[in-house]
């Protein structure tokens, strides 16, 4: 059977995202534009459809028979009367974001209000030449959105299947150093993260930091609590929701002190059997002393 199966955990995640869409766009119901990876069952689109007037849905398909899932996606859209609102983009999401068009030269029609990057794989990987294509593609997305001065909600799901070649540890070192420059001692928290047995704990910090860094030139990020859950085929998944608010442009933008501390201290949800439980992974919070002053 070619159809995707989603767990009730995933459905819970979508419901949480719907709440965010309602919160950020309550005045624009029916007028939003979506870019994402809805898979052929389009479960997220079906749940959120009343908020959107346009869907740019990316489907790569399985190698050698790419057309199958793409055909299925359009079939789902037809069955639910959504085909007129759907633009099917064929190809790999990273490539499409980097090139600005799909495998058949269909352009990505920026801007979007909700971007749902529901990756089936991990977020961190580099190709043989050391190129981090996924991060680059997200950077491109942010730049294109920023060029149009557009606030948007970025929804990002990935599994823990990453090819981390020391990048996560480097990020934590950067955070520790940056906070140190700002007069904040976060070493105890950082060490707790680095020695934590669950990869989710580190990704909980890494992904928001990555997005924050990529977007800092143009956007201010509002991070919601990430959710980790068991996906289909028992895959461990993490989901991030970040609202990006357009700010003045800074050539050398960086996540702010508040953002870094917020990312480190932000608890997560663990979703089990469709129910959410908040967790801090047992990691001590960074304490910001009132006397802590940023170094000018």
């Amino acid at each position: 059977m070619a159809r995707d199966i989603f767990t009730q955990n995933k459905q819970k995640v979508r419901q949480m995202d719907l709440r965010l869409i309602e919160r950020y766009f309550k005045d624009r119901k029916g007028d939003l534009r979506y870019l994402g990876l809805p898979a052929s069952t389009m479960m997220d689109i079906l749940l959120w459809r009343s908020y959107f007037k346009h869907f740019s849905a990316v489907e790569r398909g399985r190698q050698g028979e790419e057309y199958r899932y793409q055909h299925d996606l359009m079939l789902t859209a037809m069955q639910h009367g959504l085909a007129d609102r759907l633009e099917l983009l064929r190809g790999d999401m990273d490539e499409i974001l980097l090139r600005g068009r799909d495998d058949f030269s269909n352009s990505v029609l920026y801007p979007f209000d909700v971007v749902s990057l529901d990756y089936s794989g991990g977020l961190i990987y580099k190709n043989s030449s050391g190129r981090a294509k996924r991060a680059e593609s997200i950077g491109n997305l942010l730049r294109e959105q920023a060029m149009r001065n557009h606030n948007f909600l970025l929804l990002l799901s990935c599994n823990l299947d990453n090819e981390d070649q020391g990048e996560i540890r480097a990020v934590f070192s950067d955070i520790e150093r940056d906070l140190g420059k700002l007069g904040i001692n976060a070493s105890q928290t950082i060490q707790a993260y680095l020695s934590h047995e669950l990869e989710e704990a580190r990704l909980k910090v890494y992904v928001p930091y990555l997005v924050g860094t990529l977007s800092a030139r143009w956007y201010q990020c509002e991070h919601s609590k990430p959710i980790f859950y068991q996906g289909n085929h028992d895959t461990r998944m993490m989901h991030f929701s970040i609202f990006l608010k357009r700010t003045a442009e800074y050539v050398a933008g960086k996540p702010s002190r508040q953002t870094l501390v917020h990312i480190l201290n932000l608890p997560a949800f663990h979703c089990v059997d469709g129910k959410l439980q908040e967790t801090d992974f047992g990691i001590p919070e960074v304490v910001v002393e009132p006397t802590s002053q940023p170094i000018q």
Partner: protein
Amino acid sequence: MSNQVYQPEEIVLQREEYAYGFIIEVLTQGLYPNKLHVIREYIQNAYDAILAWRRVSGVSDYGRIDTKISPPSIFIYDDGVGMDRAKINQYRYVGYSEKRTGEGVGFRGIGKLSGISVAEKLIVTSSPLGVAERYRLVFNANEMLSHVLALKSEGKNIPLNELIQTHTTVTTDDEAQDRHYTMVELYNIRDDSKFLLSEDELRVYLSMNAPVDFDPEFPYSSTVDTALRNYVPDYDTAALYLNGGRLFKPYLEDLKAPQMDFVWGDGEQSRQMDDDEEENHPEPLAFYWYCEHAKKGQLEDRLRRGLFYRVKNFAVGTNQLPRIALWRSTPERSFYFFGEIHICDPDIVPSSQRDDFEQNEARERLHARGVQISRTLNRIAEGSSDQRRSKEFILEAERVVGDVQAELESNQIPREVKFDKMFSIRTAVENVRKRLHKAPEGFRERGEEIMEKGDQLIKRLEGAEVGETSTGIYDIKQTLKLGAEASRVYEIIVACLKDEFSDEPELYERLVRRIHTALEERMGKDEG
């Protein structure tokens, strides 16, 4: 892919094959010079599936067809009866169709594969009601045609069966039991057919060719639709959408109210439009309706003016087909009208290309009896032309009489042109008199009135003393204080000029004015 290739002599030894691979190339590539007809084929199948569902469900206005252009593909989706596993398998059979002539729109079993002539793949997914499965056929057209052409370059052949089996797959997936639909994807439209991805092209083509409803903006949509549903046995419509926009049959502006009638076969008794006892009459050959252009001449829209043949509400040919087949004289008059000829006789069958009908006795009968359409329309056009001319003459007479009357009342008619004015009135009145019986309603009284007015004005002019006391220009003898002899010379010259220029009164008048001006200048100067 099987590499086994048969030489004809080997096949005789094994099993006789009667069809070979190259026929696919011929049937599909050569079937439609106009690639837009390929899309129509799938719309036809979708329409048939919806009609079948209507028969099953009893819901007469059920169903919609969605056409979506999503480059590089075109999708056609219907929520009709759907296909079960056996039917999906049969989809691969070339020239196989279980539709009987007259049942559904397509019936040859060839058009369903026409997509392989424009696309890299033909993908058909379908699910019938009550079966929790959906079936998918993938026809790898590019691979198949390449295979055939490669073999041909070596002078080899492959049996059709083997070719199709090699390049098609049928798979099964789960589906909700209550779903019934078919979706066709023409995947990756080829470069030579890329224009099919133009929404504008497709919109114009489908709105004119598919069995869609009349545009609600068309003032006579309801009248015509009701008549067609009453009098055309297979007439029906379906909601067809292109990229989310509903398509309607186009209509033209400035049309008179529709007229309609039947075309009967030889010796058949005419059924009247208001005759309810239809079982007493044979089926007509056709039913036609038309709206005449309310203005002068042909309708402007070259694509949509004229009459169009339709079979089961699908168009056959263009507006040139009835014009050429039915108009023996003055064919330009067919474009004074906008309308349709719906074929009712099931023996009149569209050709595969649907640009004409198959040549058979029924078609000849249609052509022979259909001449009544052109006769009727020509007569109407002629009548309208007469009415229009008659109206124009009345209006002209009103203008001439009005002008002369005004001039007379303000004493502006020179004596020298009195007879010309009378002549103009006589001509205008005579023109009205000749064509008054052809004048449209409301204009006859005006015509009679202006004739009477004209006659009275002529009488007034005959008895009137005109020119003597006008502006002074014409009373030149008095102005210049000419003596009796000079006045006599002047009158002789003017009389000669009038005689000479009797056919050109304006020139005559100009000359007299010029003489007057010259006399005034010279004689005034002499006096000074």
